[in-house]
């Protein structure tokens, strides 16, 4: 029992409620949001220390022992992702201060932002499948509001599609939980793991596993990503950065949790399907990233590629590749947030999102250009930067398992990422001046620079300090390779 664990969820929730009453006072809202996120970061650091020293921390809501009550479980994997979420949120919040516009700030942007955080953090920490569904819904309903806030025609059009997809996938989620409850009679994850191991993962449970895979793939954009490129180009940059960094990763987290804790008995069947989905995602995402000449589209397809890459780590499922997956997930969340923030800055500097109409930005925005260049190298996985350690471990794991095709596609996808981002760099920064009349030099407020540079420092720091990060990620992957640690911590107190 450890009451600290619920703090990362409670802080954004309470902040959001307070912010609703201050909706017209923009300055107060900004300060309160920022202070709340810093507080949250502090609480997560405390929890992280405890998990590192004493192992997995649990909290039984109102003292009901599992499997009867809802349980919050903070293992290293979840806490690392919560930490990353708080960092990404701080970056996006700082960037949104001066770019999101007064109108949106007055119409509950910050409360929605905090509710989204509460949903994401709750999804990471919960140890109960139905509670995961509820946290998903908190996150999704906030994301509907954030995506449509502003009400331009394009936003309305894309939100309709985004909502429809997510309503269907949520309905399927409830349906798969109904089947699961019908078969094993429990919804607590640790207890589910025990019951599924007892029953043996037969045909019926494999069907439910695949249903859950479909649900989480719809949320994460693994192979079923047809909604993503359209939906992720309509809201303002700060919101896209938040979505690209957090929402798809929550789906991936749920997938990793499900297939390492509950349905790990029939890997030849389930993990094979995940492997093929990962291959298809990387290939299709790569085609999209190369095909389009619109910056938004290129960046969105890069999100799709990385989702496929993380699924490849899960499909191999050895200690090495899961270590790599945890490291890569952390890198990817931070780097994707930064990618969208820099992308938004490039688009507003050039006054267009079409690569063909940009050019010559390096003379007027040298800092922005070199930041984007370093980030592109980090996303590809060039050694001193953050993408490298995770990718190397995953590729090593893939080769050791003999998954040659999958690994080859994963390595090739890195080259595609390099090509697509360098094309952006060359098109936007190097070419001669654009055909469009040159815009006057845009000045961003210092908060936008603080957020971009801060995230970039983290991207470099994650690469340089990967030994130190690895000590945490190794502890996280231990739980993923050996479910009994998790079950012991939750059920045997």
């Amino acid at each position, binding site marked *: 029992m450890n009451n600290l664990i619920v703090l990362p969820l409670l802080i954004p929730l309470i902040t959001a409620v307070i912010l609703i009453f201050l909706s017209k006072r923009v300055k107060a809202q900004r300060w309160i949001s920022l202070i709340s996120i810093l507080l949250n970061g502090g609480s997560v650091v405390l929890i992280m220390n405890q998990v590192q020293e004493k192992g997995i921390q649990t909290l039984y809501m109102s003292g009901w022992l599992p499997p009867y009550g809802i349980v919050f479980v903070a293992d290293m994997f979840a806490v690392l992702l919560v930490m990353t979420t708080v960092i990404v949120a701080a970056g996006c919040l700082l960037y949104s201060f001066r770019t999101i516009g007064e109108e949106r700030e007055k119409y509950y942007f910050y409360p929605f932002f905090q509710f989204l955080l509460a949903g994401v953090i709750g999804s990471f920490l919960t140890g109960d499948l139905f509670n995961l569904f509820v946290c998903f819904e908190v996150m999704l309903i906030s994301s509907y509001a954030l995506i449509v806030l502003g*009400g331009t*025609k394009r936003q309305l059009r894309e939100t309709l599609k985004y909502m429809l997809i997510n*309503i269907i996938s*949520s309905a399927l989620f409830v349906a798969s939980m*109904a089947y699961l409850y*019908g078969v094993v009679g429990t919804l607590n994850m640790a207890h589910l793991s025990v019951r599924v191991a007892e029953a043996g993962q037969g045909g019926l449970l494999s069907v439910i596993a695949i249903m859950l895979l479909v649900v989480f793939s719809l949320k994460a954009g693994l192979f079923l990503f047809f909604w993503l490129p359209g939906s992720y180009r309509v809201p303002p940059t700060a919101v896209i950065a938040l979505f690209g960094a957090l929402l798809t990763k929550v789906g991936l987290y749920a997938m990793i949790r499900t297939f390492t804790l509950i349905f790990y008995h029939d890997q030849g069947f389930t993990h094979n399907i995940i492997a093929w989905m990962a291959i298809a995602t990387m290939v299709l995402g790569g085609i999209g990233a190369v095909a389009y000449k619109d910056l938004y589209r290129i960046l969105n397809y890069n999100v799709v590629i990385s989702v496929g890459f993380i699924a490849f780590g899960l499909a191999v499922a050895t200690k090495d590749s899961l270590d790599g997956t945890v490291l890569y997930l952390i890198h990817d969340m931070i780097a994707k947030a930064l990618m969208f923030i820099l992308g938004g800055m490039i688009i507003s500097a050039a006054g267009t999102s079409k690569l063909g109409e940009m050019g010559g930005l390096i003379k007027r925005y040298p800092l922005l250009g070199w930041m984007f260049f370093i980030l592109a190298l980090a996303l590809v996985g060039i050694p001193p930067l953050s993408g490298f350690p995770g990718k190397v471990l995953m590729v090593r794991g893939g080769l050791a398992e003999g998954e040659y095709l999958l690994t080859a596609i994963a390595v090739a996808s890195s080259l595609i990422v390099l090509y697509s981002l360098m094309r952006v760099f060359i098109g936007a920064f190097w070419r001669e001046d654009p055909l469009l009349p040159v815009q006057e030099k845009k000045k961003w407020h210092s908060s936008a620079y603080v957020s971009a540079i801060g995230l970039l420092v983290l991207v470099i720091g994650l690469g340089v300090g990967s030994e130190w990060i690895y000590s945490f990620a190794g502890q996280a992957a231990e739980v993923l390779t050996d479910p009994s640690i998790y079950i012991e911590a939750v059920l045997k107190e």
Partner: protein
Amino acid sequence: MELYMSIAIGVLFAVGVYLILSKSILRIILGTSLISHGVHLLLLTTAKLKTGAAPLLGEQAETYVDPLPQALILTSIVISFGVTSFFFVLAYKAYQRLGTDDMEELRGEEDE
């Protein structure tokens, strides 16, 4: 009894999917509501429709029906109610701004 319920749920799902695949936004929203009805009935059915008293301790009965799925359904109902009402308002707003309720016409990139 479970068999009849399963057939009814199957019909609800089939009709819901058919409606979601139609052009008009209102039909699509009706389809999502039918699917959520189907899902809630499914939750009730898979937990076994044993005969027993309602889960109230005042009943003093020998057996009660399973209380957990009822709690899950209640949660799920309010969530889908919230989402559906948001969806309706969104559809109304989209009709006002875009002047169409035909999904086929909501294609394209331009922000005219």
